[in-house]
């Protein structure tokens, strides 16, 4: 159904006026893109479950001020290193007697933002870079893509650690370093998509019909570059949650006493033999959330690609 209708829409876009197009849309009663996407995505139970988990974790972290039973920075020294299931402290206490559940909730805010924001910012920058380089080609292409090749040459983890290390600890610096590391990767995806779409017949058709370059760029090419970037980006969020936590683990990220899941893992290092849960719990949280983003990424890929829709 959607496969039949897409070319019709694309062909008429360059020819007819907006009013005609609207009339035609009413005539066809074509389900919206969102509807099609949702129908495909909701079929995928695993992806739906993962998305729900992400939603719940985000919500719980946002509501940390309300939900969190204790202050995440103030400890109760009498009960330090209390194990899982201690009355009043479901996930136990850490080395400074701080409630692990409360720290997990507050830490979620940092660990999620530290990945979500850089991926979003880097995606916007990368789409612009990839689109410009791919669409205009020639010298612009050379300048942008060869510069990015230089950043691509560094092992990603090393570059992130080096930039974060040079800039010094702090939330903003971590996000900046992650953004810089991501741009070459996402730009390549946006660039490849742009070049592929640019050579499709429907773009030639639009050009022949007299569409201006701006129209072609924003109306025909941009929408087709976005879906691979969104798919790639959602997978990257998971990887970046782990990397961001890693930087905090090294002490190059968030500065204590503010909790984040990486720092929490690091806090437990000195008590591994007596209280492994202090490190284990935040690590399991990291795995669950990172894996969920990965699964959602796969689900999005299947749902956004008409060829993979069943």
């Amino acid at each position: 159904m959607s496969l039949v209708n897409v070319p019709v829409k694309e062909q008429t876009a360059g020819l007819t006026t907006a009013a005609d197009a609207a009339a035609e849309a009413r005539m066809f009663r074509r389900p919206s893109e969102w509807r099609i996407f949702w129908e495909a995505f909701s079929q995928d139970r695993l992806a739906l479950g993962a998305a729900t988990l992400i939603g719940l974790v985000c919500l719980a972290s946002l509501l940390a001020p309300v939900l969190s039973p204790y202050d995440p920075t103030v400890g109760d020294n009498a009960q330090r290193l209390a194990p899982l299931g201690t009355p009043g402290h479901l996930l136990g206490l850490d080395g400074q007697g701080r409630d692990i559940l409360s720290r997990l909730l507050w830490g979620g805010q940092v660990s999620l933002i530290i990945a979500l924001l850089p991926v979003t910012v880097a995606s916007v920058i990368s789409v612009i870079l990839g689109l410009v380089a791919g669409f205009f080609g020639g010298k612009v292409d050379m300048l942008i893509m060869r510069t990015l090749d230089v950043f691509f040459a560094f092992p990603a983890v090393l570059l992130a650690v080096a930039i974060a290390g040079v800039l010094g600890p702090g939330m903003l610096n971590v996000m900046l370093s992650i953004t810089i590391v991501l741009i070459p990767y996402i730009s390549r995806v946006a660039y490849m998509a742009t070049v592929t779409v640019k050579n499709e017949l429907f773009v030639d058709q639009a050009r022949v019909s007299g569409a201006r370059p701006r129209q072609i760029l924003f109306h025909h090419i941009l929408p087709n570059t976005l879906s691979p970037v969104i798919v790639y980006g959602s997978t990257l969020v998971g990887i970046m949650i782990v990397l961001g936590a890693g930087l905090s683990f090294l002490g190059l990220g968030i500065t204590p006493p503010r909790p984040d899941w990486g720092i929490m893992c690091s806090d437990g290092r000195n008590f591994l033999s007596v209280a492994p849960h202090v490190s284990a719990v935040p690590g399991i949280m990291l795995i669950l959330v990172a894996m969920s983003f990965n699964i959602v990424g796969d689900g999005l890929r299947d749902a956004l690609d008409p060829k993979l829709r069943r």
Partner: protein
Amino acid sequence: MIKFLVYRVATIVPVLFGVSIVVFLMMKLIPGDPAEALLGPAATTEKIEMVRKSLGLDQPFYVQYFRWLWKVLQGDFGSSIAVNVPVAQLVWPKFWNTVLLTAGSLVICIVVGLGVGIVSGTRQYSWFDRISMSLTLIVANTPAFWLGLILMVVMALYLGWFPATGMYSMRASSKTWGDLIHHMVLPAITTASVSAAIIARLVRSSFLDVIRKHYITALRAKGLSERDIILRHGMKNAMPPIINIVGLQVGYLMGGALFTEVVFSWPGIGLQIYSSIVARDLPVVQAAVLVTTFVFVLVNLGTDIVVAALDPRIRRA
């Protein structure tokens, strides 16, 4: 092939040049004057000026850059601020230790990744396939530093099978390979985990792809054994994308080894970078990042050449 070789080798020259500029500029971004930092708060203005001059900091940026590059090309990375020895002397032995760890991890990656991938790919939807693919999904998203801690707790602290930290036993009279490997097992598994999972998944999908090709059906019809079909004929066409990803993972291993080295106190380049960052010993960070990236670029070059040698279609593109 020669044309491809020349072209591919030529492309790394501007990249390496760019890398050196980025590394140079990165260290210039640091807030504060290195001369002041070197002399401490009690220094007089004249003295700072003198040191600035002797370090060449009064020169324009591009002059400083080319001076630095000229020295680097001769293997002179300056001296470490923290321990006052030539950086090269400090970095090379550490680099060798990281190469050992990376090699160990790579062996695990290839054995586990290929083994699991091939079995899963040829027995799609079997119980082995389902379990191993769920496991790889979990392992691929497990932070290496966390896995390191867990392995340390279980294998070193509780079971006592492997040492928890270091590269050689303190009490041993001489450094033996056996002792080294015994120390390397846990760090190598930790470093390899994510890459092995990624490789296993890719090998599986690569095999699924190949096994549906018509020539495989033709070979089956011809009566070849399943083993011969997969290992001799399937392997050949499944290999190029696999080698490609393995090459990429080598770079990932070298970067990811940083976390492992910090957790297990493995005296490699990652631990050196980490401790130099903490000590703000920037010439060492600069040299270590540069050397690691240089090797990473060379590994990628080697991978591309091997893939092109195996697959004529890529050479022509």
